[in-house]
């Protein structure tokens, strides 16, 4: 069964309507159109996948992310999380335990004033026993490699460490899926690497589905599958190889190719024989050196003759 299955979901942010005002029906319609953040999104995610969602600011990525643990529910269409309809209020807590979210600003999502209490917050909310809470908290801290900071104030941590604590807070609830909503946007390269390495490990070792919303194209190269959103719709989907083969489209949607793909494209434009959809250094290296080798070979054979 798919962990996430969305069927033509649309969402509009509420627009203030003045019932007395007769004027400007057109403007209101316009406003309503502008408030439409999602427009018929259909997609499926299988358990254990590492997914990247790309798209420019305002493309609807974050709105979609908020649907995933029922912070908002679709105005049209249906979204199933692990078989549960997000509109089913009785399943609300199960959905939120199944899908955990890590947000962008580390300071605005930490509630506790000591690291271990922060990680415990979710388990406390669902009424777990004291013993289970402690066990869960320390296991989660161990998994994100923050055990030694258990008794420290979050204010004293670096950005990358704060985000790892946030991941631990989600992890303590034993989720099947973790959604990262631009969680590395405010971090420096080292912090970004810390967080990405942590979630990659969770994905690989524990089979937790990861959905990463990001502006870093390099991160997307390593995903299993990519969705590109624009204007509230899924405009492209596929493996990194498929997505980054469609070079023109990527740029039309306000994104940028990873540097590796940019180089492949530049070389190809200069007449070199480089295949489309290069995603790793090895592939590009092979493509460049293979040509050299074949040329060298022909030279050698020519020389022999």
């Amino acid at each position, binding site marked *: 069964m798919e962990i996430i299955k969305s069927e033509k979901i649309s969402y509009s942010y509420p627009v203030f309507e003045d019932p007395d005002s007769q004027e400007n029906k057109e403007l209101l319609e316009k406003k309503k159109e502008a408030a439409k953040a999602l427009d018929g999104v259909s997609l499926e995610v299988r358990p254990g996948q590492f997914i990247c969602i790309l798209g420019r600011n305002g493309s609807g990525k974050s709105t979609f992310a*908020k649907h995933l643990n029922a912070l908002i529910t679709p105005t049209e269409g249906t979204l199933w999380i692990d078989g549960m309809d997000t509109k089913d209020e009785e399943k609300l807590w199960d959905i*939120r*335990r199944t899908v*955990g979210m890590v947000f962008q600003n580390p300071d605005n999502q930490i509630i506790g004033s000591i690291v271990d209490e922060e990680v415990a917050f979710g388990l406390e909310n669902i009424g777990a026993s004291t013993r289970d809470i402690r066990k869960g908290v320390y296991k989660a801290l161990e998994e994100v490699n923050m055990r030694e900071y258990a008794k420290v104030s*979050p204010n004293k941590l670096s950005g990358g460490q704060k985000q790892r604590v946030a991941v631990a807070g989600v992890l303590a*609830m034993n989720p099947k899926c973790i959604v990262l909503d631009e969680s590395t946007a405010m971090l420096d390269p080292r912090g970004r690497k810390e967080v990405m390495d942590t979630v990659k490990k969770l994905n690989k070792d524990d089979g937790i589905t990861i959905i990463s919303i990001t502006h870093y194209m390099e991160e997307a190269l390593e995903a299993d599958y990519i969705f590109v959103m624009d204007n509230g719709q899924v405009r492209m989907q596929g493996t990194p190889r498929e997505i980054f083969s469609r070079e023109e489209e990527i740029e039309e949607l306000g994104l940028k190719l990873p540097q590796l793909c940019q180089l492949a494209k530049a070389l190809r434009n200069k007449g070199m024989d480089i295949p489309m959809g290069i995603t790793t250094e090895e592939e590009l290296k092979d493509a460049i050196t293979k040509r050299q080798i074949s040329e060298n070979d022909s030279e050698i054979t020519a020389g022999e003759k």
Partner: protein
Amino acid sequence: MFRDITIGQFYPVTSIINKLDPRVKLCGVVVYIAAVFIINNIFGLLFIIAALAVLIYLSKVPLKHIMKGLRFVWFLVIIAIFFNLFFSDGDIIWRWWIFHMSRQGILRAAFFAVRLVCVIVGSSMLTYTTTPTNLTAGLEKVMQPLNKIHFPGHEIAMMMSIALRFIPILSEEINKIIKAQLARGADFDSGGIIVKAKGMIPIMIPLFISAFRRASDLATAMESRCYSGGEGRTKMYPLRYHKRDTVGYIVLLLFLLASIGLRILMQQFVTIGRI
């Protein structure tokens, strides 16, 4: 700005006072303040000071740290001394213009100042020796009986702990906004009060917007982690009384009785030093 405030900041050491249940300490503060106002003679005062000294010794909070916290209340003490010193009636020993000094006034001023310092130091010992989380957990528990009359004890405690966490973050934010506007040539120093008040707008508006954004982010984050108020919530570190807490309560009771005793007994035998 806020960063200078030392009053009420937890001092991280392990001591017997530190380990006491926050409820005992909350109760202690109430008893202590009551005692300060019960006593009415020099012996009582000495008793209170001695008790405070023992408390500070046991808490392992350095005296220097406590004195630093007092910096902000000195002027309050001075005002209190000033009024008691120069405007008290009694055996006048000095007089100039509207000011007059009396023997009783001097005594009263000294007594009042010492009392005030005792109250401030004593109650700040609570926050020096209790982590914010523990303190709010204690308050929540103490307020629990009020739930029956729909008093939102949990909500108040949660608000307090969030406020405590965000004070350093917001103070940093204010600092940053001020600097950013200074970098745009803002002048917060010169001009009259109205000019100055107007000059605050470029700080206040961004600050409010930022505070609202943070609040909304935090609410979303809490909701996504299954928060739904205090009902059905459990704790990783629930408050549990230990033997030392029972001892604490007994000490507090004895302390209160001793203060009352000192007031009643000394009244009969001693006339000197009574105020």
